[in-house]
């Protein structure tokens, strides 16, 4: 590619697809060993075995093993062929044409066609998928001129769409088994019939999922594993012991505490990687409820940010598995993340005290200025642990914090429905594209009481709204980069949400487990390249 010209981001992505499908799945691999059983413990157990009807973590991990997406992604989220072998987008960004792979069969022997693609996007992803509703909101119809062509018609350009076509985010379901049924109640949701590399052999609800190699998989030579066994184990210490005692081969998705990952990574039998998580950059952040009159004062929010050492939390709560928060975006959202001109709030209690005095909250009796509640999400232990630290450092600057720990259902109700919180600390996905994961926390249209992980701060800034709305339909990549840069500066000056830690996810695996992470999706993808060294 020459210098960055006016060619749009979308066309760049589309152009990559013209490269023949032969590139998919490197053939050098065939010379190597294949086979083996991969055993991995996970938690919690899934509800469905399909991520088109649920965006839950367990479903997202399992689905790509049974189902394929239209595309896959190389590192850097560069599209590669999967069920689609070629793709191209019109210059106005309103039409995307996919050429589909010939000869692909569903696990039940039926032929895969464009009808499956049209049905999945229009009837399932747009309706039942949590993020799909937003990502594909502008998708008006899918035209199928023949069995191997699907043409997407959009009402407005949707740059995020091209990043959301993998098997994890948008798995293609068999129309012949879903059409005319109650999709959420369809038995195929727990007895998957996909086009993917693995077949379901056994599913014991809440206990384990056993998959076997699909002998008729369209990508010849794959999958290399004979079996994939996922056991649902509630206790993280047991998951660690399973790996350490050789009763499990790998643990994905930070399913064990960070200090254990780091300890095991030191041992010769194990290897750690933080690659393969570009599709789900996660972060820990704290919402300020702006309906609280004290927190509505920007100076107070700045003071609180100065009183909290986010680097301390990153090093001690996350054991260095991540980077201290510096912007509303995650550092792994490489195309748009910036710190240039974004205000920063270095740890400085003296400055925090000054700002609080300035804001009109002098220390009263007992040295306290005012009291706040802090609701940490019980999802994982890190928010609860970080909450104790935050309580202590805020006490030092004269803010009396009461921590309210509760179960997950109560947390969601307190913060997003009842809105009786002052500070809410939680971890969330920042999305494969900021449109999908970040906008929801800042866009005023996302202030949706009752909806979990929406704009819980009740932040309203028309300038920010305008930038986000522009970026969500921007087809000029350079302009989009600029819009997100402006957004980061503005939103971090207003600071409705304090980013605490941009989390680095990790996979820890026995060294015998080969090629589990070979692209942007890593183990979240199909694992079809993975094999076990005898």
């Amino acid at each position, binding site marked *: 590619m020459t210098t960055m010209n006016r060619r749009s981001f979308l066309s760049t992505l589309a152009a990559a697809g013209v490269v023949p499908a032969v590139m998919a799945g490197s053939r050098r691999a065939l010379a190597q060993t294949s086979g083996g*059983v991969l*055993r991995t*413990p996970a938690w*919690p*157990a899934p*509800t*469905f075995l399909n991520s088109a009807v*649920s*965006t*839950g*973590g367990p479903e997202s991990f399992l689905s790509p093993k049974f189902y394929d997406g239209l595309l896959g992604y190389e590192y850097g989220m560069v599209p590669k062929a999967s069920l689609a072998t070629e793709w191209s987008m019109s210059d106005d960004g309103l039409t995307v044409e996919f050429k589909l792979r010939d000869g692909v069969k569903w696990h039940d022997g039926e032929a895969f066609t464009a009808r499956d693609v049209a049905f999945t996007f229009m009837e399932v992803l747009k309706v039942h998928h*949590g*993020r799909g*509703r937003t990502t594909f909101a502008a998708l008006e119809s899918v035209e199928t001129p023949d069995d191997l062509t699907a043409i997407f018609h959009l009402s407005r350009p949707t740059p995020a769409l091209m990043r959301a076509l993998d098997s994890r985010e948008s798995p293609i379901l068999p129309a012949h088994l879903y059409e005319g049924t109650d999709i959420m109640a369809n038995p195929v*949701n*727990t007895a998957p019939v996909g086009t993917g590399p693995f077949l379901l*052999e*056994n599913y*014991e*609800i*809440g*206990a*384990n999922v*056993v998959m076997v190699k699909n002998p008729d998989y369209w990508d010849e030579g794959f999958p290399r594993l004979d*079996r994939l*066994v996922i*056991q*649902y*184990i*509630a*206790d993280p*210490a*047991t998951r660690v*012991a*399973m790996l*350490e*005692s*050789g*009763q*499990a081969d790998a643990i994905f998705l930070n399913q064990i505490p960070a200090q254990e990952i780091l300890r095991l990574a030191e041992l010769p039998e194990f290897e750690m990687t933080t690659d393969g998580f570009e599709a789900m950059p996660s972060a820990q952040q704290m919402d300020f409820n702006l309906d609280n009159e004290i927190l509505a004062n920007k100076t107070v929010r700045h003071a609180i940010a100065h009183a909290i050492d986010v680097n301390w939390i990153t090093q001690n709560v996350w054991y260095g598995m991540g980077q201290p928060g510096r912007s509303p975006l995650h550092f792994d959202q490489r195309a748009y993340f910036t710190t240039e001109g974004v205000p920063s709030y270095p740890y400085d209690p003296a400055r925090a005290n000054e700002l609080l005095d300035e804001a009109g909250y002098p220390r009263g009796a007992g040295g306290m200025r005012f009291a706040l509640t802090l609701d940490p999400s019980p*999802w994982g232990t890190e928010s609860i642990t970080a909450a104790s630290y935050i309580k202590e450092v805020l006490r030092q600057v004269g803010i009396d914090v009461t921590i309210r720990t*509760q*179960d*997950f*259902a*109560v*947390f*969601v*109700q*307190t913060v*997003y*429905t009842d809105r009786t919180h002052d500070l809410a600390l939680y971890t969330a996905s920042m999305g494969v594209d900021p449109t999908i994961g970040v906008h929801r926390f800042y866009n005023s249209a996302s202030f*949706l*009481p*009752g*909806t*979990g*992980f929406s704009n819980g701060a009740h932040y309203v800034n028309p300038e920010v709204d305008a930038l986000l709305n522009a970026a969500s339909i921007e087809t000029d990549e350079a302009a989009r980069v600029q819009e997100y840069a402006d957004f980061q500066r503005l939103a971090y000056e207003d600071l409705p949400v304090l980013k605490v830690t941009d989390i680095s996810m990790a996979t820890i695996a026995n060294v015998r487990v080969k090629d589990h992470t070979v692209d942007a999706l890593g183990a979240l993808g199909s694992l079809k390249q993975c094999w076990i060294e005898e």
Partner: protein
Amino acid sequence: MSEPVPLTGTGTTGRGPAKAPSRRLSPALRYVLRRLLQAVLVMMLVMVGSFLLVKLAPGDMVDAMAGTRDLTADQIAGLRERYGLDQSVFVQLLRYMALLATFDFGYSPINAAPAMDVILARLPVTAILVVCSVSLSMVIGTLFGILASRFAGKAVDLGISMFMLLLYATPSFIIAILLILVFAVKLRWLPIAGFESVGMGYTGLTYLKDVAAHLILPVTALCTFYIAIYGRIGRASMLEVLKLDFVRTARGKGLTEGRVFYVHALRNALLPLVTMAGLQVSSLFGGAVLIETIFGLPGMGRTAFDAVFQRDTNLLLGVVFISSLAVVIVNFVIDMLYMVLDPRVNLK
């Protein structure tokens, strides 16, 4: 059976008019019926009580789902309607009771399956765990108790008592973790997670061996505390009984010390141990939550844990119902056993 214990309960078989006068049959039957009625009442209380308790907690299943699945307000309302959560608590309770009357626990949304199916799949795991733990701890504990009482005040007694105290004082989860560290991580002898080696396709004897290997550590962890209890109760009970008149009579009749000890005294000393077994079964369902969680066993305890965490009300209530039913049945059986074993039980 030559020992001086009258067998009150045998009259209830009502065979032959000569030895079973109707005046004796009737109180026994009434006793059984009264116990049955109590059991039914307890189950009703458990059902209504647990339902109301679950409803008292703020937040519901749909809140938990909304938090993990990015649902819109419309979808949330739709789900509440689908699961009847938009109705008043009273209506929900009535609906639930109507459902239970047909022995249906409703739908378990977190498993996308009927709650009854999930529970029936899990019940055998917990049942095996509980049965193994109760029988093993009872046998081992009682043996220790007998041994200690036989050598009361001697070095053997002291040694056993010290050991029992240690088992009694160490929480089962500590023992579980120690067992995992030693037998799985260091020695690599035993599996630690699940009920079987998943995906290996074992059958027959290999399968049984595999399951047995998976049960060794969790059963041991569940047993230790109760071994100590049975040991201590067994010792005290034996020493108590050995002081009684009928033992002196037995000795006076010239029976050997062994016969007096193992036949006459032991049978009477077992009574408190039977009581303990009933209590143990009840509390084991609680203990199983922890042990099943640590050892990744897909049993009822684990199911309760999952159901609480994700607010799967139907599943949780189903687990509580079945566990309570098991406890009530066990207690009923113990009461009946008592009637047979102990002539002093008041049948009125």
